[in-house]
């Protein structure tokens, strides 16, 4: 059960990061859930290979024992927390690079830190990201 509780904590932590700390609110975005649905299939595959071949072996005392494609359900929670945390950081960093206010405040453009490219001039409002457009923050 120990791993189970740690995963529950990680899920709460990642959700807090997304909704409160960085306010990227990916949990409320369709793009995130569609992405996760795609990733979920591959997650089952990768976890299934790792646990099915017993590359990674779990102490039965630390998990619930509920398994999906060989992998303990805890692993899916672990993966979800890792993905949510990373995507939240990715979006928050992009928001800063785009010169958008951090944390949803009206404090003005994000400050460019050391080693970080200066925010580009604000493009015309409403320009949708289109395939083939040059990344503005790399």
């Amino acid at each position: 059960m120990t791993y189970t509780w740690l995963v529950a904590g990680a899920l709460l932590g990642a959700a807090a990061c997304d909704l409160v700390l960085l306010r990227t609110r990916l949990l409320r975005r369709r793009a995130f859930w569609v992405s996760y649905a795609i990733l979920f299939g591959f997650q089952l595959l990768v976890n299934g290979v790792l646990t099915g071949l017993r590359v990674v072996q779990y102490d039965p005392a630390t998990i619930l024992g509920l398994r999906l494609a060989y992998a303990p359900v805890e692993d899916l929670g672990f993966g979800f927390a890792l993905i949510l945390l990373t995507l939240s950081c990715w979006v928050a960093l992009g928001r800063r690079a785009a010169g958008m206010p951090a944390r949803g405040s009206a404090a003005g453009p994000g400050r460019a830190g050391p080693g970080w490219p200066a925010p580009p001039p604000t493009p015309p409002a409403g320009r949708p990201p289109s395939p083939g457009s040059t990344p503005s923050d790399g």
Partner: protein
Amino acid sequence: MRQLTYLALLAGCLLGTLPLELVLRVGVYARWRRLLAALAPGLVLGVAWDLYAVRQGHWRFDHRYLTGLDVAGLPAEEVLFFVVIPTCAILTLEAVGRRRPGWPIGDEPAEPVPGEPEGAGR
């Protein structure tokens, strides 16, 4: 060959998502500084958790499937896991964002005014 199992699995993940960068041109690797910064928290927390879990006996590795290289006290593959999987996740999110411009991911310059309902007008 068996020692390459875990490493090959991770390589497959990177190869499988490479067309998103090369064909769909999501520009994730092109924005490598942002990528590295976004990976850092998951890598640090994940490795710390992994070290703790191995020490506590929550899980262990079958070294017949590992190259034998160690990084920070863990199998190199396990450390790479925290780089490869999150990278694939970012590539996927960016690809979905590219294919569905109506589904904002939150870093678009024209973000809806804070306080407005997130899904308004869609």
